[in-house]
């Protein structure tokens, strides 16, 4: 049977699913409820000098029938006194000794860091997470992402913390930076035991177009916030991969950003994470989603024959290459399964207007199934992505697999285009219609602006 137990830089938890430091971990009440439901760990809502928050704090990006596919907040760290939090940490640890309780911290001075490290360690926290990521409100005061964006400052603070640390120290990184490996390296150099990423992305989630003010609106005004939820997952995964692949970093990674189901968690783990943290999905659906997360993850691990998270962590990394290492001889083309096609012609218009004019309509308008003109198909996938029917458009391999030549090799062999009108241009032999032909097209009456 699959073991979901995790040992993350010395922090043990019954499964790799942790609540991220956020409103769901605001209190002992919530965390006990979450552990009782099956969560493996919780990173306490960031502790420090308590703040005062504004009213109206969140905004959301809805897409079609999906609410909150992106989520934005302008909240700060905890607004509760430290002593209340410490007392509750103790209570939670007493009742749930096997579960991971990590204290997220954000303070300013060396003395404050030393003091708070001592306090949370005494309260029984299993580890700490240094919040160098909050991109709004705190950074203006020289904390949060203001630290995360300055590797040297980050390193210094980590060193202060390590001076007194007796429990594992995780550094939480901000994505509001060009190269995520720079702060990751600084964390390593400062002596941190692990990293977690990503914190939220600076954002404006929407604008009230009647009142001319972004969301969330605070008495007619607003400010930029931090963006998270399913929409940020691809960005987060890329950053996790960058850190995981960097030879200088080599720290355990807790993956954060848009995790909502077991599949998301598996993806993060395959890219090098060994625990994942969840915030938005819990704020949307509550702690109950843990059932699907743990059940799905263990079923997947059983199917693939993984007996521990460790075994699967980073499994996809060897297949993430630089562009120049990809095989240029590999050739796929789109294939439409006529049995499945429902005739929406989205593939046609996508390829015709948005790609390579490789899909054609039947000359008999009563037949709505389009056809692929293989000579023009560059195998970009677009049609298969827009097709509303599962597996209706498949990408089929056309090369025989005998050749593997990448850009690097072609450069060495001198077979890459080097001048503007080079005969070796990849698209030279594609049939691109003449510009004027566009105006002679038979378009449906409803295609154009009247």
């Amino acid at each position, binding site marked *: 049977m699959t073991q979901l137990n995790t040992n993350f830089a010395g922090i043990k938890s019954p499964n790799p699913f942790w609540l991220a430091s956020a409103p769901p971990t605001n209190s002992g009440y919530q965390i006990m409820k979450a552990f009782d439901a099956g969560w493996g760990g919780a990173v306490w809502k960031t502790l420090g000098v308590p703040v005062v928050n504004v009213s109206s704090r969140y905004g959301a990006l809805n897409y*079609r*029938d999906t609410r909150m596919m992106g989520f934005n907040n302008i909240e700060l760290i905890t607004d509760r006194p430290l002593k209340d939090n410490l007392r509750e940490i103790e209570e939670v640890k007493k009742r749930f000794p096997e579960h991971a309780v990590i204290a997220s911290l954000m303070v300013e001075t060396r003395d404050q860091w030393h003091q708070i490290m001592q306090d949370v360690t005494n309260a029984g926290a299993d580890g700490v997470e240094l919040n160098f990521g909050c991109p709004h409100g705190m950074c203006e005061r020289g904390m949060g992402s203001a630290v995360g964006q300055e590797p040297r400052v980050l390193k210094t603070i980590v060193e202060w913390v390590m001076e007194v640390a007796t429990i594992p120290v995780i550094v939480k990184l901000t994505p509001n930076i060009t190269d995520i490996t720079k702060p990751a390296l600084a964390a390593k150099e400062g002596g941190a035991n692990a990293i977690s990423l990503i914190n939220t992305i600076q954002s404006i989630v929407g604008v009230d177009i009647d009142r001319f003010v972004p969301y969330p609106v605070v008495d007619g005004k607003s400010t930029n916030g931090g963006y998270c939820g399913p929409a940020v997952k691809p960005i987060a995964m890329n950053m996790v991969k960058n850190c995981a692949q960097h030879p200088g970093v080599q720290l355990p990674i807790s993956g954060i950003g848009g995790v909502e189901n077991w599949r998301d968690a598996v993806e993060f783990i395959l890219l090098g994470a060994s625990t994942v943290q969840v915030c938005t999905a819990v704020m949307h659906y509550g702690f109950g989603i843990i059932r699907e997360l743990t059940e799905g993850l263990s079923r997947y691990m059983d199917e693939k024959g993984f007996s521990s998270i460790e075994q699967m962590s980073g499994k996809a990394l060897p297949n993430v290459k630089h562009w120049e290492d990809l095989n240029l001889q590999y050739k796929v083309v789109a294939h439409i399964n006529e049995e499945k096609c*429902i*005739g*929406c*012609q*989205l593939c*046609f*218009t996508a390829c015709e207007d948005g790609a390579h004019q490789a899909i054609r*309509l039947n000359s008999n*308008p009563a037949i*709505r199934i389009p056809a692929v003109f293989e000579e023009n198909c560059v195998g970009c996938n677009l049609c298969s992505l827009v097709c*509303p*029917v599962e597996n209706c458009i498949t990408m089929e391999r056309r090369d025989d697999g005998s050749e593997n030549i990448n850009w690097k090799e072609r450069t060495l062999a001198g077979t890459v285009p080097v001048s503007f009108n080079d005969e070796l241009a990849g698209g030279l032999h594609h049939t691109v219609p003449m510009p004027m032909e566009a105006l002679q097209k038979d378009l*449906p*009456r*409803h*295609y154009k602006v009247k």
Partner: protein
Amino acid sequence: MAEFNAPANEAEFDKNFAQLKPHMTKTQAYLESSRCLFCYDAPCIKACPTAIDIPLFIRQIHSGNVNGAAKTIYESNYLGNTCGKVCPTEVLCEGACVFVEANEKPLEIGRLQTYATQQVLANDKDLFTLPETGKNKVAIIGAGPAGLACACELRLHGVAVDIYEAKTKASGLISHGVAPYKIQNEEAWGETDYLERKFGFRIFYGHPVTEVTQTKYLEDNYDAVFIGTGLGKTSQMGIPGEHLQNVFGAVELIEKLRDQKNKLHFPGNVIVLGGGNTAMDAASEAARMGAKEVTLVYRRSKNEMGAYEFEYDLAKSVGVKAIFNAAPVEILGDEKAKGIKFIRTKEVQGKVEPIAGTEFVLDCDWVVKATGQEKHRNLFSLIQGLHTDAAGKLLVDAASYRCMATKYFAGGDAVSGGQEVVNAAAEGKQAAFGILTFLNKE
């Protein structure tokens, strides 16, 4: 059966005749509109007789541009709100939606359509800017869907329009033919009143055109005349007993029902004769009015019914029984109808033939004839140069809807012999373009 009790008051009537396509809430419209794929060369548009740009208006609804959506709808179909509720969408737009091909529920195009137009009607929004009225004047006979659509389009081109309507309200069969569970009078009139207000045509109510002096007047005072008179009253079957009390024409009975609602009392046992959509409607309505037994009798087989499958299903779902291959021979009774004598039929080379010796009698309290409507032959005979086919349908040019070399144009049921509101709306609009071309040539 008795699935419904006779409605004692208007509230109970509304309950028995609950709307088949109730208005959507904002949330429903948001969720439903999110499903549209925005198909290229969308098949739903092609299946709409008025060719409404359906994917566009659905996208407009989804992006919160409801007035824009309503405008998209009205640009193609002036009876947009009504059509959303009464169109047989199963065989039109929704039947063509690509989701049907995927064995998925098609978009609820009709309800989305009404959702958008409702907001505009409720808020009395202006959607169109009318040009100055020019010198041309057109008369329209009949303020049904065909006449109204023709009037709107002409007004949009600066033509003055007067409509002569026999009844005291506009909308034609929408308010006195279509089943009340599809649309209620208030909603039908809400739209026709809006059109009358916004498009600035005049309607002369209570003005039936029945005499040659009137047609002469129209010819002398207008540059063109549009005939949108629809069909007439229920035709005679030509069997003994048709004159008896309690024998009703379906359209006449439905008109009465829509007018009197719960105050019209249906008896225990109703026989409806016919196999078209009107027969299905009449039977459904009788059942919803609390009739204990409603029997449909059709002289041909089930497969040959003119009614749409879903209309038959709807009638069955409220407990209507059906008998096929039986033709009425005589309506029995002294003063009042008491029953009908039928004879079994079979089909020989497409013709219905009675089978000798198979007569039988069904008792009943009411007989409802849904066996077709008359054409307005009297009116047509007043006008020089009008031609009809053998069945009495007006003959027109297929593109301009002009009646053979006259200043008359026609559209709607008077030409088609009986289709849907949406067809009448499409033809009335199309005829307006025919009239405009004609006026510009003069």
